[in-house]
């Protein structure tokens, strides 16, 4: 009946004489409307598949090669596909559990020699790679050597080169491969029948932590068969400092981990992982994991709300928005192992053609290049920052005031270590004394750059500028954002008198903070021109010391030196939060895991019925 009516009405319409323009209009309308009606079917949310998990991040990954990747996004994927010898036990950043190793070596179990220079690591049996081939000690040896010897410019190889070979780079000053590099590595890493033996040039306490974070095991024969490095000295030159896409492992993966690579879609900034059903432990509960880069926050939020995403990357600025979403759980106060933000002082600024120091003289319209050599200047700045106010107002009360270069959670963190209080009176006293009183009389003017888009660091600069100007109106700091290339250029060339930055752990050990922040050969002190012989000595002693109590004591002394020297203002040990759907279960917070708390080790996770 209804069909007849429709047909009838159509005929009636067609019978009616139409003007050409009206007909055109009618055709166009139908052309647009009819497909639209066909397209308007409700969208089925991805969450309906309880085995599939979707994480929305903000960027794509850089490489799948464990010896190349040095960014959180890539490392997160790699550590779901590959496995390291040890892993951090659940949420701990100190306690290790064996993963591909059968035991965690220690002095107590006799697997670390008395002099701390030999590590014997028994390996787990019965582990297979995702292609079905068995993991052998030779694979472990190859993976550690490959991680060190590929040593790409700007890569992470130095974290293992330093403890195992005693030097930071496999290349000499001319950029040529050191002739002894392969032999040194082969001597340092040896494979036994069911174990791996490491020989260190000197004791290095953080080694186990490094091996729990880096150099996951890759199959040598599979890699070599596909044109990657075969592990020999002869072919090393071709692979040392190799181009990013010059290795087979750049976009192929074959690990022992709970997930295998299904696809890396670089166009969609998406990685798809599938459950490894041959996994040596019980197979993961999630069958599929999609990690996708979605730049726009609103889009990520809508996808989370619609159930197309199970967890998303969100910043503190978005906290209230995501907290208000129905069906979404926000896990607050997730600890981080980092110092963020902090302000670095450059002791000897590069003066030539430097626009950031004004006139370059102490005439009220610039600063002399060595302004921050004077301890009173640095202390004046330290007292002029409102640390508690920053954490209260900017970090919304989350985070801990930073009182030293060892962050909360690590051995050596001392909660009772003194802080610089926000005290403008004391700041005034130090700045009056600075440069024999000339600074107070003439004033200064310089520029602080911060990374564009990082509003928190911009606020740090403005707070400092405002407080100093309130002490003496002749103290002027111009605050400017800069895109990353401009910021990098200005900071590495030593042209910034003071600038905000942050430091994140390569591995969770106090050495990874003490060295880059306080050792004269560490990155920051080197570029700042800061040097304290006692600090250097303490850091080297603590690095070799395996007894935790003695290490802790050494770091306590280091923090006291840091407090007296003030080479930087450390502002906050931040905490973060995670945003996920309420049906997500099993997420384990561990700040060591790459991209935590947004990223995840998916093995223990699953989705409850929605």
């Amino acid at each position: 009946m209804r069909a007849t009516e429709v047909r009838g009405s159509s005929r009636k319409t067609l019978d009616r004489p139409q003007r050409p323009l009206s007909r055109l209009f009618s055709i166009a309308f139908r052309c647009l409307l009819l497909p639209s009606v066909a397209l308007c079917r409700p969208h089925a949310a991805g969450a309906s598949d309880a085995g599939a998990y979707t994480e929305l991040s903000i960027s794509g990954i850089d490489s799948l090669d464990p010896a190349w990747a040095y960014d959180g996004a890539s490392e997160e994927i790699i550590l779901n596909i590959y496995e390291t010898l040890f892993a951090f036990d659940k949420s701990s950043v100190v306690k290790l559990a064996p993963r591909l190793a059968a035991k965690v070596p220690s002095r107590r179990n006799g697997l670390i020699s008395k002099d701390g220079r030999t590590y014997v690591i028994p390996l787990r049996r019965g582990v297979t790679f995702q292609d079905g081939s068995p993991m052998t000690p030779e694979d472990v040896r190859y993976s550690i050597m490959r991680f060190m010897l590929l040593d790409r410019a700007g890569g992470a190889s130095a974290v293992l080169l330093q403890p195992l070979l005693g030097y930071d780079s496999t290349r000499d000053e001319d950029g040529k491969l050191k002739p002894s590099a392969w032999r040194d590595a082969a001597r340092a890493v040896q494979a036994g029948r069911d174990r791996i033996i490491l020989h260190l040039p000197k004791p290095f306490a953080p080694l186990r932590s490094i091996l729990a974070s880096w150099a996951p095991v890759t199959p040598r024969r599979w890699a070599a068969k596909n044109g990657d490095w075969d592990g020999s000295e002869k072919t090393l030159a071709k692979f040392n400092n190799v181009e990013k896409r010059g290795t087979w492992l750049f976009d192929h993966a074959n690990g022992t981990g709970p997930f295998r690579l299904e696809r890396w879609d670089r166009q969609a900034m998406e990685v798809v992982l599938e459950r490894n059903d041959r996994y040596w432990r019980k197979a993961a509960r999630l069958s599929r994991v999609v990690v996708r880069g979605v730049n726009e926050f609103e889009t990520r939020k809508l996808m989370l709300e619609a159930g197309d995403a199970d967890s998303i990357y969100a910043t503190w600025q978005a906290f209230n928005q995501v907290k208000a979403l129905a069906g979404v759980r926000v896990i607050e106060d997730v600890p981080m192992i980092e110092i963020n933000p902090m302000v670095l002082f450059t002791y000897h600024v590069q003066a030539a053609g430097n626009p950031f120091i004004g006139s370059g003289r102490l005439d009220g319209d610039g600063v002399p290049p060595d302004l921050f050599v004077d301890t009173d200047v640095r202390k004046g700045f330290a007292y002029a920052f409102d640390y508690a106010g920053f954490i209260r107002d900017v970090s919304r009360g989350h985070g801990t005031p930073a009182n030293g270069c060892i962050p909360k959670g690590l051995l050596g963190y001392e909660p009772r270590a003194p802080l610089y209080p926000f005290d403008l009176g004391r700041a005034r006293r130090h700045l009056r004394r600075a440069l024999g009183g000339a600074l107070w009389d003439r004033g200064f003017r310089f520029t602080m750059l911060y990374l564009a888009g990082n509003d928190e660091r911009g606020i740090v600069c403005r707070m400092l500028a405002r407080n100093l100007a309130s002490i003496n109106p002749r103290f002027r700091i111009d605050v400017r954002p800069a895109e990353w290339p401009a910021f990098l250029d200005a900071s590495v060339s030593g042209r910034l008198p003071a600038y905000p930055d942050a430091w994140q752990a390569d591995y969770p050990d106090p050495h990874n903070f003490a060295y880059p922040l306080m050792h004269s050969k560490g990155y920051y002190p080197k570029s700042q021109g800061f040097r304290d012989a006692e600090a250097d000595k303490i850091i080297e002693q603590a690095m070799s010391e395996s007894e935790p109590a003695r290490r802790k004591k050494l770091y306590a002394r280091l923090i006291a030196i840091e407090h007296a020297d003030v080479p930087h203002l450390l502002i906050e040990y931040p905490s973060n939060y995670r945003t996920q759907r309420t049906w997500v279960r099993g997420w384990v917070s561990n700040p060591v895991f790459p991209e935590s708390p947004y990223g995840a080790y998916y093995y223990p996770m699953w989705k409850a019925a929605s």
Partner: protein
Amino acid sequence: MRFMGRRLLFLPLVLFGVTALLFFAVDFLSPEMRAALYVKNPRQMASVEDVIEKYGLRKPLPVQYGIWLREALRGNLGYSETARMPVADAIREFFPATLELALAAFVPTVVLGVLFGVLSAVFKDRWLDQATRFVAITGYSLPSFVLGLLLLMLFYGKWHLFAPGRYSLDVDLAVHAAGFKHPTGLLCLDAILDGRWDVFWDVARHLVLPAATLTYINLALLLRVTRSAMLEELGKDYVRTARAKGLPESLVVGRHALRNALIPVITLSSLLIVSLLGGVVITETIFDYPGIGRWTVMAAQELDIPGVIGTTLLASVLFVIANLCADLLYAVVDPRLRA
């Protein structure tokens, strides 16, 4: 043909000029700034010198340009760090997605723009004209990110009709299955050729919102240009003569006036298609659409010089081709130009 030949011969010169200009501009950036492409976090900052050395960033400009040109002539446009693939591959991957979106937006923009522009002129100051004027004003006034987000919030966030991205997880496996062929890279077309209507409808649904946003934003200009060109033509003597001869109004408008009014419309349409094909940054970002615009903006932000040069080359080629097409179309609609 000679005209076309001349234009195409001109293309290599344009490309050479564009790339030389870009290299010249890049030379103003210090090697440290250019190293920022490879050094992404403070943990890598100690290696900046190593990176500069590795990528030859201190080499003199003519040497760097010479190396690039030599490789480009061999078909190697370099490696784009932001696309994580060679530039030529990136263009091959990203361009079809943008082309698909551009066509989905361009066709309705031109059809509706010309149609309503003509109607608006014919029914000047009547309700239809007022309505199109309203559309034009709102189209001009609404920034694409506002309109895009509004549409996304309503049609995805509220009614769950059209999701962002290029396709949904449901068809993800089908699109990447070995049996699914990608002869054109245009997923809608590929899905039809593969007989996968489920994929076709899914991809088409993902195109609706970004295409609607682009259509609405671009419609305004085309509509106004068509209207004013039509009004100008409708007031001319030859139209009055045609009407006096008793020609039906539809012929007067459709065959005589519209044909002459199309010249500025063709010019504008050629510019529109170039801007759509060159990538629509904001729309692609909001709708998480993996096209050339999203890549272009990432390349520019991160100083990915090979990426920037690749996208600029593409835009130059498109611009020359679009101009050529526009010139040919002028000749089609106006016989006087064929001489």
